């Protein structure tokens, strides 16, 4: 009788251990699945900012009119100022460009010489949201002085 009870006890103990191991495995697996989903979402945001960055660098509204950039991305400074003003002040234009730029912020930062920053577009519903940014070196051409500044175009996707 005692032997049978002991054996029964052993079997129960083994089953409990197996169940505990299975539960630990499930919890761990669920945790990793959630982590993977978050990472995938971040990657999608990053790829989105790359896609929009490529669109912006080829935008006729801001591209240099002269083909003298030596293969670099050349952006006309005054076209940038005009476009950013248009998007900021004209609601219809904002809606049109929202379809192109989606939930991003597009800025041109002067690096040398100069330190100005021009915001071409900013998705309004962007307060306190995290961002994923892509940076592209550009030549910022001043057609009046015929000079080119070293700049960085920053395209940030809001998450």
């Amino acid at each position, binding site marked *: 009788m005692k032997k049978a009870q002991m054996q029964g006890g052993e079997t129960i103990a083994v089953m409990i251990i197996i169940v505990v191991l299975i539960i630990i495995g499930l919890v761990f697996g669920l945790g990793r699945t959630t982590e993977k989903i978050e*990472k995938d979402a971040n990657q999608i945001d990053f790829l989105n900012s790359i896609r929009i960055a490529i669109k912006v660098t080829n935008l006729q509204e801001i591209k240099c009119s002269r083909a003298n*950039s030596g293969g*670099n991305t050349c952006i006309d400074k005054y076209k940038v100022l005009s476009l950013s003003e248009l998007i900021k002040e004209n609601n219809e234009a904002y809606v049109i460009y929202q379809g192109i730029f989606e939930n991003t912020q597009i800025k041109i930062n002067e690096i*040398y*010489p100069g330190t100005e920053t021009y915001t071409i577009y900013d998705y309004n519903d962007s307060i306190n949201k995290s961002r994923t940014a892509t940076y592209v070196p550009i*030549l910022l051409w001043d057609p009046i002085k015929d000079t*080119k*500044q*070293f700049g*960085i175009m920053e395209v940030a996707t809001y998450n």
Partner: protein
Amino acid sequence: MINKKNAQMEIMGLLVIVILVIVGLLLILTFDTKENKQKSESTKFSYEQLTGTFGSTFMETTAPCNEIMRDMISDCAFSKEIICEQEESCEYITYTLEEIANKTLGLAGINHTIKISSNTNESIIIINNTGCIEGNSITKTTPIATSYEPIRLDLIICK
């Protein structure tokens, strides 16, 4: 005899559980490595843009004294006639290149060394940000055609 067999069976059972746990841990480790690789792939675009076009964009930049950097580099290498903002071309290029590199590559966390050289002069200008261990770097070269001999700007990025 029967007791011995029972004991052996129980040990086998425990062994099976231990093997299952080890296999599970190995699978988890394998997944971890794969996900890290995916993440490094996704940041490649921004990195390639910053490092790939840095040299060529710098070449076409205009200094405040209306000289193009390409011409100033050529002057620094061969003739040393240009004075920009009361500095000789070599000093001006060194200072400017360091400033731009710190504001772009430095801020992006890219450790780098920039070297401008020709066939006859291996070190026209060298800017060492943090130094790279030999064999642990990637070099992005921008060639510069001059009327004397070709020069190149090497952006050496630490891995």
